[in-house]
């Protein structure tokens, strides 16, 4: 699946998007954050406070316990500050 990062999550990780293939044990958004955090220092830094991170699956806001199976695009970003 495609993963996208925005704002300081993107800056900390250093890339805007990538394709990932997490193991089948990674079932929820929360699981995915945990798995991504193990991929290196930049990831660990971006996700150091997982409660602050917001997520969207296929362009819709989701909660940390949302299932990721079937998702084409998952995005991670800080709380929004538009308007």
């Amino acid at each position, binding site marked *: 699946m495609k993963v996208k990062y925005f704002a300081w999550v993107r800056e900390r990780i250093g890339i805007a998007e990538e394709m990932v293939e997490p193991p089948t044990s990674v079932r929820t958004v929360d699981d995915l954050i945990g798995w991504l955090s193990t991929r290196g220092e930049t990831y660990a830094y971006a996700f150091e406070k997982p409660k602050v991170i917001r997520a969207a699956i296929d362009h819709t806001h989701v909660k940390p316990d949302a299932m990721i199976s079937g998702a084409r695009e998952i995005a991670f970003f800080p*709380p*929004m500050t538009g308007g």
Partner: protein
Amino acid sequence: MSAATIRIQEADFDIAQEIAALTKGRSDVGAVVTFSGICRGSENGEPIAALTLEHYPEMAEAEIKRHTDEAMSRWPLTGLTVVHRVGRITPGENIVLVLAASAHRQAAFQAAEFLMDYLKANAPFWKREESQNGASWIEARGHDDAAAARWTKS
């Protein structure tokens, strides 16, 4: 009404032109409310040189449309426009425009407030500020979440 107009763009907008687009040649519009959000010259007392707005294009379009659809179903509107700028914006420049038209004023005021509360708290846009101390991401404000929550139907 037909669908709302939603535009995400780097260019500035022209309020008079946007009002004309919703009112010209028709006689069923009695009330037009506009909200323009403008870049201020300081944030929490610190002077800033500019804001840079990042967004998640596909999601922003879809999410704003979901909310303009909701506004149109909740209030009897004759027109609705949302323009959100992205990119680098300096103090005094426009950031966002919401425009709601209706036969009567309450619907227009409510729809414009609803959309602004939504955009502040839930639309996928992020502001980075440039100041003397370098660049930093603006933090979300808890009371914007509270403002957005008051529209949730129980």
